[in-house]
């Protein structure tokens, strides 16, 4: 039997697992990181809801989580993972640590991108009697779109790197496949193909990101 017939199903399955992990954790990281980033901006010194306590607390928590390497985090929060999704293994079991890993990262990206927005524009909209809530959505997030997307592109690529560790809890994925076949079984062909796919994925993500940035930048 040829390589493709015997190994292709594994590779295909691993690709699907990777995309599942990547897609789901990215989605939840944005859902958590975006509001956190906005909260950071609002509570920061000079922000409209300036609150030192909230800002500093968030700031420290984000820094702590970001200091922990993913492979440690994966085991460190096992009880938490169990509490949230009821299991600590498989794709489901790795989504939680991935989200915990990526959310603070996304929050920082949002904060940085939103900080770049010209405060004067915000002032101009306040002067037009437009509410802060509307300004956040229609002015700040709008103007920050190019930076947010280029930041998210970077986050997605590093999240893809983190999914490679998912094999440790039996979640599979391309990274795990390359490790098992390439390293443990010396089937370098599988490893080459897997790495090739990962390269294509990264290229694809980056290209898509760049295109979106260009479109929103105008």
């Amino acid at each position: 039997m040829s390589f493709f017939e015997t190994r292709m199903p594994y590779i295909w399955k691993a690709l699907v697992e990777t995309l599942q992990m990547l897609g789901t954790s990215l989605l939840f990281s944005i859902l958590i990181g975006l509001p956190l980033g906005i909260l950071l901006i609002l509570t920061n010194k000079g922000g409209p809801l300036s609150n030192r306590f909230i800002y500093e607390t968030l700031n420290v928590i984000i820094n702590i989580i970001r200091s922990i390497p993913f492979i440690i985090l994966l085991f460190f929060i096992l009880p938490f993972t169990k509490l949230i999704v009821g299991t600590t293994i498989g794709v489901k079991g790795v989504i939680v640590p991935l989200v915990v890993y990526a959310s603070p990262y996304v929050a920082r990206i949002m904060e940085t991108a939103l900080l770049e927005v010209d405060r004067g524009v915000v002032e101009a909209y306040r002067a037009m009697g437009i509410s802060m809530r509307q300004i956040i959505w229609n002015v700040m997030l709008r103007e920050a779109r190019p930076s947010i997307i280029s930041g998210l592109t970077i986050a997605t690529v590093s999240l893809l790197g983190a999914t490679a560790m998912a094999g440790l809890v039996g979640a599979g994925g391309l990274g795990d496949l390359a490790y098992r076949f390439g390293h443990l079984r010396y089937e370098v062909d599988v490893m080459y193909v897997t790495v090739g796919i990962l390269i294509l994925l990264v290229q694809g993500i980056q290209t898509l990101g760049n295109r979106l940035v260009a479109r929103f930048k105008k």
Partner: protein
Amino acid sequence: MIRLEHITKTFTTKKGKVEALRDVSLEVRQGEIFGIIGYSGAGKSTLIRCVNLLEKPTSGKVIIHDQDCTSYTEKQLSAVRKKIGMIFQSFHLLKTATVYDNIAIPLRLTGYSKEEIRRRIDKYVRIVGLEDKLDAYPRQLSGGQQQRVAIARALVHEPELLLCDEATSSLDPETTDSILELLMEINRELGITILLITHEMHVIQKICDRVAVMESGQIVEQGQVVDLFTRPQHPTTKKFVRSLYRDDLQEEFLTSLRRTGDVFRLTFVGDCANEPLLAELSVQLNVRPNILAGQIVQLKNASFGILVIHLPGDQVQLNEAREFLASRGVMVERMGIA
């Protein structure tokens, strides 16, 4: 229409308290163009932000149409602000939106219908002269054009008052003039009252009816533009007025002229500008004025002339000449040293 009463504003910084505004009171009347001039740091930016309460005064009252708005909630303020347009030194447009969207987005957020938005944009874009730029992005436009977009963005809300925060300070002289023309047209044709702050006396000269001079958080002088230009009292006002026409003389030159008489600056306002007063002076008092410098200053509603003359003669003759000129309505000042 707008009254500021005893406004003070204190900022607390690491270095301590900074008094940005100290007991500022002024009134902007319906339909006029009121200018506030001051050097940077005089507090004029803080003051203009107190008018629409982007800055809350530490004490004092902001009264708009006889309503004390000082302690309004954000929601009440939002209704007030919709009637007050504001433009800025650096335009503050959305970089990621076309000219059309830059004007339309605030209207959409305010809840106007699509048709109404289109109607208003059509109308006001024509007034600012940007009909053919609707699809352009701000960075494709010149500074003057960007300011026009900002003006259109303010006008589509059909405000009663337009606040201009150094609106021409980042523009070149020619563009400044074209924007000033536009502001005058808006004031005249649409009846929008304008309150502006600037550090350029030229802006006051060209378009303002009344003016207040600010220094270290206080208004040191205010009144009709023509009065301030011809009879400035406070040293800062004098400095601003002199910045428009430099006619100071070098010390050596002045000293040498004073050996044979004295040097005066004459300001002619109103009727006295139409009479041949210097000719009469020489006929009646037999002194022979020598004109050293002269010019006409054109204000929005008036113009006045300035002559720097050397009068030969002794103290008695000079006093006679001064009295003669003063009796005919000319303001006479002894020239100082540059």
